């Protein structure tokens, strides 16, 4: 008999305010399938503060605390401290923030939480720009990408540097577990988020979340483009735990050009720029493989 390959319960309600084809809303739906109802989410200013819906309605069927942009790490530590004071140890604390709210504006609070070894899961949904305020460049915007603050023009002012290596930064900071996940690989995602629930200490999940208006892609291609990111090696799926790396899906089979050319934000790239991206991706992927002991069983 045909079977569902993911948990059936839905903790994201229909009628939320996410754009059609929003990767970040699909991500929340999938993550909450793994997290379950005993979860408290806290979230800074980001698209998700809008996706949640307009009061008196709420799209998430778990408690959510909204707070200022900088605070996800601090609020997560606070919720955990309150639960500890009450002797509650079966509730998962989740910090849910965008890339801008993580790698730029929330970085020091997150680093503080890692420093305190706060027992929580931090999920960064990475749509690679400040999308909620109209597509401004963030520390996670990829090399050469168009955004409204890297608009190109005659001085070729596209994004000039690569994404911040947030996972490496947090690993050296002391996280207990790190994983990259993608909406295009839901079973792998659910396995890793479930695993994060069983580990004590700070867990960091980096989730690539396609954004149709920000990436200039048709809404129908949201999952396909996210899959291409993994198939081209641009967004490899791996885990980090106790000093060891595991590559979950060794599926780098396609040239980066396929991923780049599927999106309007990269349509200005010259063959030389594409070759430069390819060179960097090959190098990073080889370095990651060298760190991994082999393909894991997850997903």
């Amino acid at each position, binding site marked *: 008999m045909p079977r569902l390959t993911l948990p059936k319960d839905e903790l994201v*309600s*229909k009628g939320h305010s996410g754009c*059609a084809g929003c*990767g970040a809303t699909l991500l929340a739906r999938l993550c909450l399938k793994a997290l379950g109802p005993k979860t408290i989410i806290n979230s800074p200013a980001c698209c998700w503060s809008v996706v*949640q819906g307009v009061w*008196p309605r709420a*799209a998430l069927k778990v408690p959510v605390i909204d707070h200022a942009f900088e605070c996800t790490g601090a609020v997560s530590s606070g919720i955990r401290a309150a639960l500890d004071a009450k002797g509650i140890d079966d509730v998962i604390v989740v910090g849910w923030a965008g890339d801008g709210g993580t790698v730029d504006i929330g970085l020091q609070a997150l680093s503080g939480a890692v420093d305190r070894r706060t027992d929580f899961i931090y999920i960064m949904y990475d749509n690679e720009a400040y999308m909620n305020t109209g597509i401004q460049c963030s520390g996670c915007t990829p090399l050469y990408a168009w955004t409204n603050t890297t608009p190109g023009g005659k001085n070729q002012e596209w994004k000039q540097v690569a994404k911040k290596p947030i996972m490496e930064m947090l690993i050296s900071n002391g996280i207990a577990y790190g994983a990259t996940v993608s909406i295009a690989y839901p079973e792998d995602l659910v396995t890793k988020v479930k695993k994060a629930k069983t580990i004590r200490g700070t867990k960091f999940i980096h989730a690539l979340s396609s954004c149709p208006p920000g990436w200039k892609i048709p809404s*129908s291609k949201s999952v396909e483009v996210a899959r291409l990111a993994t198939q081209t090696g641009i967004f490899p799926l791996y885990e980090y735990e106790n000093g060891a790396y595991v590559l979950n899906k060794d599926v780098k089979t396609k040239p980066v050009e396929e991923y780049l050319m599927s999106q309007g934000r990269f349509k200005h790239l010259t063959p030389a720029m594409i070759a430069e991206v390819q060179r960097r991706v090959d190098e990073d992927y080889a370095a990651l493989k060298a760190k991994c002991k082999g393909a894991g069983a997850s997903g």
Partner: protein
Amino acid sequence: METYRDLPQSTYSLQTTESVRTGTWRTFRPIIDTKKCTRCYTCWKFCPDVSIEVREEGEYPRVDYDHCKGCGICANECPTGAIEMVREDSIC
């Protein structure tokens, strides 16, 4: 609620967003052809709007047109091409 005095002291939600009919956003309507559908539930997995319903495992997926925004992910991901996106204004 008449004035600000009627607001609760802190903002807690009173209902889910389910009463919001996001189906009105839709330009293209996904239509599932059960002759081609193999019930793999790929469409259910990838719908960001929780709008593909599988009430019992084994049954054919159904679209909730009150909430489906018509993004077309389900049609794009369906491995057998069982879902067609049809313009709303071409349906009478």
